[in-house]
């Protein structure tokens, strides 16, 4: 046996003290997070005043009981059916617009585009794409609900409001993610084409886009799910559709009608999420999470995927099914645009121009007094606290649900069973899976402001009901995505743990969490950014924070003050994005 100069190192293997997995950097972040959570609980009034309103329980109970007998009057059902279709049409049109605009902007915001087209001006390429990215961050920082209120005030009650309110911020989000996907797609094939004298545009089209397409499509379907939820929320501010009907029923305390609306939303969301999830899986797409955490894909996993792919038999019905879906999408987009009867001329009509001028002239921020600064600081702290509590709830809950709702886990044939063992009828496992998935579906299908109003029955007003509503809604989204991650985990390492006798929980500890926890943390941090933006929504129904001030200023036409508040809010989201990015680097 030959060793290369290693005899001396044998001494170094003498006993060592165990080393913590926490680097100093991680430890600091952990302490800061703990402090942030404690501070948020303090701001929410925890331990200082009673938080639960026992007087509201009878009404809450009424509300819960109504779930068993929703309003099924045919006239009302027809109304709800129409409202459901309107919400769906908003989502389809909003997604269609944001994807086409986002693709264009995303290409311009990608480093690889500038590198390929202008290889000689490498020094200028970086400022170019950085400029595009910076320009995109402004529409992205403003929540679609605020866009909705803005369009509402210049366009009036018009279906354009909902479509534009989705399209503007979502285009910017799509552009950011698409540019990241393009930059993370292996560029060697592109480079190989350029090296043999291919013009850059052809090389980009031929060498890069086809490879990026699965990920671009996968993200597009996910965006559609998001659009649908936004369309429901936009109804709440009066843009019509299911959200609007639900709000009307809630305000007039007609709980039976309210539940009809809930069930319609749950059915619609469930159908769309299932369809989109199936489509992504059938087309063999990677998880949405891999894109957002930016972790390099595992070459070994790719090799395994390639080997199994070569032996995989393409089921003909699968291909038909995918084609059928794509054809359906191609038909649905023009149909939805037509059914909403969008009148684009409203955008440049005299009335719109006049209202826009009015707002712009009034939107001169006045001098900010010290008192205003103090109140803004208070509200900023409240907003932060609300987002932190929501993130913790959604993140922790999401991890728990990611195991309960993962298909590859408890079910027969799953990871806890030997390969090839497919015994039938384990009712317990199936009902556990079904229940947890239903909980997640309901949590994310019901819009956040509606959750907030429901929690206001049993909680005193403040940031807690807002935080819980936000946390619950985001738990529904996170739990599902994390479950997908668990399902997509390579199962060889986990199975090898099982084969050496590890129990179910041990498998989670040694097999799942080490591989997935960094992703889970990263994704929770992303959700924190989203939660922070969404505090506006619950603010609108009175849950406090900057959102509440924005709502007040909007309803009193105080556009000068609104500009100040929005600037503070945008500044806050930027800072939060920076913190989140730093923390994600630390956990990677």
């Amino acid at each position, binding site marked *: 046996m*030959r060793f290369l100069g290693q005899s001396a190192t044998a001494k170094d293997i003498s006993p060592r003290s165990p080393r913590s997995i926490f680097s100093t950097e991680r430890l600091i972040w952990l302490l800061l997070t703990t402090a942030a959570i404690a501070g948020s609980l303090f701001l929410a009034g925890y331990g200082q005043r009673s938080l639960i309103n026992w007087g509201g329980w009878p009404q809450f109970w009424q509300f819960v009981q109504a779930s068993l007998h929703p309003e099924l009057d045919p006239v009302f059902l027809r109304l709800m059916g129409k409202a459901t279709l309107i919400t769906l049409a908003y989502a389809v049109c909003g997604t269609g617009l944001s994807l086409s605009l986002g693709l264009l902007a995303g290409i311009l915001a990608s480093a690889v585009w500038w590198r390929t087209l202008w290889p000689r001006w490498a020094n200028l390429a970086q400022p170019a794409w950085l400029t595009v990215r910076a320009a995109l961050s402004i529409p992205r920082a403003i929540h679609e609900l605020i866009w909705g209120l803005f369009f509402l005030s210049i366009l009036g009650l018009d279906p354009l409001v909902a479509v534009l309110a989705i399209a503007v911020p979502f285009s910017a989000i799509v552009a950011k993610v698409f540019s990241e996907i393009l930059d993370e797609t292996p560029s060697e094939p592109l480079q190989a084409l350029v090296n043999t004298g291919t013009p850059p545009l052809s090389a980009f089209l031929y060498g890069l886009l086809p490879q990026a397409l699965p990920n671009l499509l996968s993200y597009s379907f996910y965006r559609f799910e998001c659009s649908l939820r936004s369309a429901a929320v936009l109804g709440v501010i009066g843009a019509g559709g299911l959200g609007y009907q639900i709000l009307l029923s809630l305000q007039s305390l007609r709980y039976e009608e309210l539940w009809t609306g809930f069930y319609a939303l749950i059915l619609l969301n469930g159908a769309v999420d299932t369809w989109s999830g199936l489509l992504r899986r059938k087309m063999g797409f990677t998880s949405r999470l891999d894109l957002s955490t930016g972790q390099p894909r595992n070459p070994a996993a790719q090799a395994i995927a390639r080997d199994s792919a070569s032996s995989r038999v393409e089921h003909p019905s699968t291909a038909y099914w995918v084609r059928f879906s794509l054809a359906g999408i191609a038909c649905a987009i023009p149909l939805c645009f037509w059914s909403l009867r969008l009148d684009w001329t409203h955008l440049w009509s005299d009335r719109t121009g006049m209202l826009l001028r009015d707002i712009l002239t009034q939107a001169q921020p006045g001098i900010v007094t010290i008192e205003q600064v103090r109140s803004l600081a208070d509200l900023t702290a409240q907003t932060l606290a609300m987002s932190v509590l929501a993130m913790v709830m959604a993140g922790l809950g999401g991890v728990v649900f990611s195991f309960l709702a993962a298909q590859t886990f408890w079910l027969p044939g799953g990871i806890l069973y030997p390969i090839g063992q497919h015994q039938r009828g384990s009712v317990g496992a199936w009902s556990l899976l079904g229940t947890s998935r239903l909980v997640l579906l309901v949590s994310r299908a019901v819009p956040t402001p509606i959750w907030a109003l429901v929690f206001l029955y049993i909680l005193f007003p403040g940031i807690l009901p807002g935080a819980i509503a936000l946390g619950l809604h985001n738990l529904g989204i996170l739990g599902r995505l994390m479950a997908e991650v668990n399902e997509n985990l390579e199962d060889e390492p986990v199975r090898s743990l099982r084969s050496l006798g590890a129990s179910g929980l041990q498998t989670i500890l040694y097999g799942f969490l080490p591989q997935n926890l960094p992703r889970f943390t990263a994704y929770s941090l992303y959700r924190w950014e989203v939660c922070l933006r969404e505090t506006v929504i619950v603010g609108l129904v009175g849950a406090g924070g900057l959102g509440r001030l924005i709502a007040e200023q909007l309803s009193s036409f105080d556009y000068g003050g609104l500009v100040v508040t929005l600037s503070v809010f945008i500044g806050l989201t930027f800072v939060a994005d920076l913190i989140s990015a730093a923390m994600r680097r630390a956990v990677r």
Partner: protein
Amino acid sequence: MRHPSPLFELKQVSCRFNQVAALSQISLRIYPGERIALVGPSGAGKSTLLSLLNGTLAPSQGQVWVMGQNLAQARATSRRRVQRQIGMVYQQHHLIRNLAVIHNVNAGHLGYWPLWKAAWSLVWPLQVDQAAAALAQVGIADKLYARTDRLSGGQQQRVALARVLVQNPAVILADEPIASVDPERSRDIMDLLRHLSDTTGKTLVISLHEVDFARSHCDRVIGLREGKLRFDCPVSAASDSLFRDLYALSGEPQAVELR
């Protein structure tokens, strides 16, 4: 017999990445129709040399002339015109994995096709007969519409060769084309390259580690080590001891014998 004008000419070329010298003071000429084996241990600068030859890398010092042009100073269009005369084969293939084989083969046309034609071909493949003929020549005629990532490594290397056939360049540069295939497939691929050179007079520059293949398939050997030209001679003049010295493990940590 030597042709008067060389395809490639390197004049006192050095390449530095930050402080590390990848190549230093290399001068050589490559003439049409030559079959050159580029040998040397890992990190010797073989890939750097190939990148210089196909114009993806500009030298830190010296000049690289390719087909009568100094590529570092050429305009983008004229550089591309030279580059499409140079076919590349890589160890990692660099194919577009999720496209059908036909599109990867057709990528050989891209230097000549306008953008609209490239776009249309992705929807409705053009020049299918030529692609099929190229695939038949490399022995995988039946894979025309298969997805590239469903093929084995050896088959993917053949697709890359078929692409070069379609591109029909004057020179083929191959960067360790047989480093990750088994001996039988290595011989196949080397035979194919040699056959191409024999039948169409294409110039070959192949970097490899297999001395036997260098002897059997090439007619000139260039030995590189630590960025320096160690030898450049006809295959017949390259002795075993020359190769042994080139690959010797001197300077590595002392080997310790343990029983």
